[in-house]
């Protein structure tokens, strides 16, 4: 199936000389929830802003629903809704007026019935005549979502949708995003909360220092990058890791009651059988055992750290030369 968004060789260097994006290639599949994950300043917002037409790229091409975002900008932009990170609203306008304004701006004929449905869905109907300035932060964010959806786009960008949103509301937001996906909207969200990507996304792209480090199906990513931990609960605490097990990647918990074995689930031989055999030989008993997959967070930190170390190594090498 043809991707709904296709990004080719995208680059952005700001006037000040700062390079926010380097040669980014990305394809978003129709109907998926895609999470763009990265630390602050990684280039997430720049990438989104280019696709939405707010920032001009320095290099590369982007198409949305098959329309080039520069040549066929009208068609491309009609397909896209954007909820930016900053809460920017027209304080003195009513909710009803501002959402209808957005629909008109995007070239759609007025449709009060649709706007009513939208506001009800977002629990804003009771507030439709209130001035935006009188609403709470969470409601303002929902107003911005309503504005972004007012012209019935097929692609929705959510830039840090839950930044500064309390836990309860975050859950609502996630439910809402899932509901939108059900209705066929493709969703691209940026986040630096790993749990958000882990909870929501079908696929995850990790961006760091303007480079797309990887794009992967969430489960594959966790599987591929994942390390597993096997914990053995000992009936009698140990002082040190026994001599016979010293060559294995084992650590002893602080109180000596658990032996933790790290293994890579990618490798064909995880070494678990060998470990158990040796424990048996050494007469070490255990009460219980469990395994744990590393979270997306650990994967992410690993990736970003890895990239940084690589860069530093490169730098040191260059300075030495």
């Amino acid at each position, binding site marked *: 199936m043809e991707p709904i968004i296709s990004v080719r060789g995208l680059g952005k260097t700001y006037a000040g000389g700062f390079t926010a994006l380097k040669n980014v290639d990305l394809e978003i599949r129709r109907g998926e929830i895609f999470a763009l994950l990265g630390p602050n300043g990684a280039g997430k917002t720049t990438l989104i802003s280019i696709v939405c037409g707010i920032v001009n790229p320095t290099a590369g091409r982007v198409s949305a629903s098959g329309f080039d975002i520069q040549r066929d900008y009208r068609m491309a932009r009609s397909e896209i809704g954007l909820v930016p990170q900053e809460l920017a609203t027209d304080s003195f306008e009513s909710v009803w007026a501002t959402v209808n304004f957005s629909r008109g701006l*995007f070239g759609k004929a007025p449709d009060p019935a649709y706007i009513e449905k939208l506001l009800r869905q977002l629990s804003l109907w009771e507030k439709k005549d209130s001035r935006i300035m009188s609403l709470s932060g969470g409601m303002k964010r929902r107003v911005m979502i309503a504005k972004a959806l007012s012209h019935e786009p097929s692609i929705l960008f959510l830039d840090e949708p839950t930044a500064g949103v309390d836990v309860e509301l975050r859950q609502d937001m996630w439910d809402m995003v899932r509901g939108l996906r059900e209705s066929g909207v493709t969703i691209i969200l940026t986040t630096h909360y790993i749990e958000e990507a882990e909870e929501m996304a079908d696929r995850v792209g990790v961006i760091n220092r303007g480079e797309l480090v990887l794009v992967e199906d969430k489960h594959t990513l966790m599987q591929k990058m994942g390390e597993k931990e096997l914990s053995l609960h000992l009936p009698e605490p140990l002082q040190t890791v026994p001599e016979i097990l010293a060559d294995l990647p084992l650590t002893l918990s602080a109180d000596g009651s658990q032996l933790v074995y790290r293994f890579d689930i990618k490798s064909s031989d995880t070494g678990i059988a060998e470990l158990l055999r040796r424990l048996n030989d050494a007469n070490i008993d255990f009460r219980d055992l469990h395994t744990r997959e590393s979270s997306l967070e650990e994967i992410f930190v690993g990736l970003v750290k890895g990239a940084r170390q690589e860069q530093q190594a490169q730098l040191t090498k260059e300075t030495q030369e």
Partner: protein
Amino acid sequence: MNWYGIRAIYKFEMARTWRTLMQSIASPVLSTSLYFIVFGAAIGSRMGEIDGVSYGAFIIPGLIMLSLLSESISNASFGIFFPKFSGTIYEVLSAPVSPFEIVAGYVGAAATKSIVLGVLILVTARFFVDYEILHPFWMLGFLVLTAVTFSMFGFIIGVWADDFQKLQIIPLMVITPLTFLGGAFYSINMLPELWQKITLFNPVVYLISGFRWSFYGVADVNVGISLGMTLLFLLLCMATVWWIFRTGYRIKT
């Protein structure tokens, strides 16, 4: 053409006018009335006629121009500056609207307000002095042309300004002096010879002179030159706006 888009911006801007009715309509009408009382009735009664027109009537076109210029600029500049300031500009930039449509919405609304204001001042003037309009068609033409031109100029200032002070500085430091020195309250023939020459570098002279001609058939400079200069300024503004959108100057990074 995204007509709904133009209409949305236009309606949004007009709604802002109704919200700030006192500031956008009532206050210019009040201040113009004060001018009529002070210069028209009180001082004007001691002044002779200028070019066969009573002083009270003579200042009407200049006073309308004074308000028209400052209100067009302040309305249009604020209209585009505020979304930049509050961050809501993202929506206009990400919408399927062309630069022409954006300008049509913002400048159209600002010009509409100025024209309404000009007509209101004209009606208010009736309560203080008698006047006639010799060429009503041309009068309306100059009114609309000036409102559109200076709303566009205001739009440019609004894009250029990155703080509130810059927003005020051009109307306050440039436009107001130029209007006062542009013959709003006197005929430039009343100036010493040297100043008559210097004053021809003031573009507002042409606006006021042409506008006054449409009322009383008398002008400081030829009406054709007035029209030409106004059109020239409109073209300059249009070219600048075109350049702004082509380069993304101060609205896109």
